[in-house]
């Protein structure tokens, strides 16, 4: 009886899983079909696999340039946010200073500020700096994000304070404490924050759509948007190819670092 019940639950979970994963399989499979086959053979794997859609994408878009733009933006955002978040988290955990709690509260509160509140002035600032239609204009506003400080601080709080105090008594400098003692212990949180920064920036749509106008400056999500038509349309299989190109890097990164990422986010909601 008990096994029976368990199986029922596994079927439920399995159904939820199929619902959530089948779109990915569907995109992959459709991207290797010709348009006519995509309509006649909706569910099956491609009967006559073709890379024609991918060739089409490359001939119709400066795809190499677009991928490079996406990569540069995501890399810059990741490096900056990972470094600054680690430094700030270190200060919030191991220092006692005036205004610490207020400052932390203010920084973390910004997670709850909807982007619409900062969007208009940021657009004006970027325009004044002359960074519209420029990847710098996409990068800069993305840097003010407190989630990294939050996640890395959570991890640092679990490092025994006595370890740091002993190092301070031995006159070891803060940079070495951070680099040689704290960092190795909080590496999973730092790495998974970094990976999520990269993935989120890679997928960012709202801000680049406001800032970037020329196709040559586009990021992948913007390029993908060019192939959208509400009826599916003649570009459907090509859109699937761009979708696959857009999601392949985040998926690979996730698969490589999934243990770090899962453990960091599993604990993110537990400890205030």
């Amino acid at each position, binding site marked *: 009886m008990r096994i029976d019940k368990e199986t029922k639950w596994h079927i439920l979970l399995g159904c939820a899983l199929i619902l959530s994963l089948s779109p990915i399989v569907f995109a992959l499979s459709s991207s290797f079909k010709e348009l006519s086959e995509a309509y006649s053979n909706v569910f099956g794997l491609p009967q006559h696999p073709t890379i024609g859609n991918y060739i089409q994408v490359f001939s119709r878009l400066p795809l190499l340039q677009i991928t490079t733009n996406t990569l540069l933006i995501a890399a810059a955002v990741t490096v900056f946010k990972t470094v600054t978040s680690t430094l700030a988290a270190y200060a919030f955990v191991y220092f006692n200073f005036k205004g610490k709690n207020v400052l932390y509260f203010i920084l973390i509160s910004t997670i709850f500020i909807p982007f*619409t509140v900062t969007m208009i002035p940021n657009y004006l600032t970027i325009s004044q700096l002359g960074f519209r239609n420029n990847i710098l204009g996409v990068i800069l506003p993305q840097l003010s994000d407190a989630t990294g400080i939050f996640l890395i601080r959570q991890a640092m709080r679990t490092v025994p304070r006595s370890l740091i105090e002993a190092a301070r008594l031995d006159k070891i400098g803060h940079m070495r404490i951070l680099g040689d003692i704290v960092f190795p212990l909080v590496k999973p949180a730092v790495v998974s924050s970094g990976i999520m920064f990269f993935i989120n920036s890679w997928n960012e749509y709202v801000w680049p759509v406001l800032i970037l106008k020329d196709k040559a400056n586009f990021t992948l999500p913007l390029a993908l948007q060019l192939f959208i038509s509400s009826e599916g349309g003649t570009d459907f299989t090509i859109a699937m190819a761009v979708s696959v190109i857009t999601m392949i890097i985040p*998926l690979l990164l996730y698969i490589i670092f999934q243990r770090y990422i899962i453990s960091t986010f599993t604990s993110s909601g537990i400890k205030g």
Partner: protein
Amino acid sequence: MKEIEKKQIWPIVNRNTLIAYGLILPSLLVFSVFMFYPLLYTIYLSLFDWNMIKPVKTFVGLQNYFVLLQDPLTYTVLKNTLAYIAILLLFNLAAPYVLVFVLSFVIKRGQGFYKSAFFLPSVISLVVGSILYLWILNPVSGPVAIIAKFFGITLPIWSKTQGLVIAVLSLITTWKVFGYNFIVLLGGVGGVPQEVIEAARLDNVPLHRIFFDIVVPMSSATGIYVFIMTIVQGLQYVFTPIKVITQGGPDNASSNAIYNVYQEAFTLYHTGYASAFAIVTMALFVLLLVLEFKYVEKGIHYEN
């Protein structure tokens, strides 16, 4: 000994304060320019009539807020926003909460596998999600339509149907958010001691009672965190499918508080009005923030 001497010569608190602020400074700089200043400037702009291009802004006091309160569109948008919130909470809080409970205490096997697999779509762009579902749910030739036709059901043109459009756009957003919430909730529910559940099951307490009377209260800090994040992030995430698929249509039936501000600011160039609307949205979020800090930040600390 030396430490003590040093303390007397160098007031150690001040020196530490300096280093601490030095470490926070890079973050503080970008936050000042791209978060705090814009926040204040949006409040300022909300008191003006401006279109982003005119050299002169006309001061109108609180008029934008009064107009906002009188505009029937505001109430349509707020009603839609509430509908989005309700559906997002159902799919991204209630559903994963139950599945997490089942996985943690009823079947216990396969946790690692389900965690990794459910999280997978969370790393994919919502533009990809939008375009995928546009095809999967295509009412004429998509796979779901074909299955429905087999059962003699014709799919409505959801992107043009009031009400239904909100449900489908929420579903697309759910595809991305579900896995993330799932693993966060799994962390929270994992903190409930097994023995408590075992004891309740030995007493033949029904599962739904165990869930509502034991598991939910004992993991409430995580529950509230996910509740708030689902609303705050979910409403912003749903912007992408709205923008990509419906542009707020049909007849504003899929617009929400976030999309409406975007529309007012960058399509209609009602800069002052859009700013006022953004501030009102934020005020609603601040209410949630108060909740967050009241319950979650003071929640259970397992370490330290």
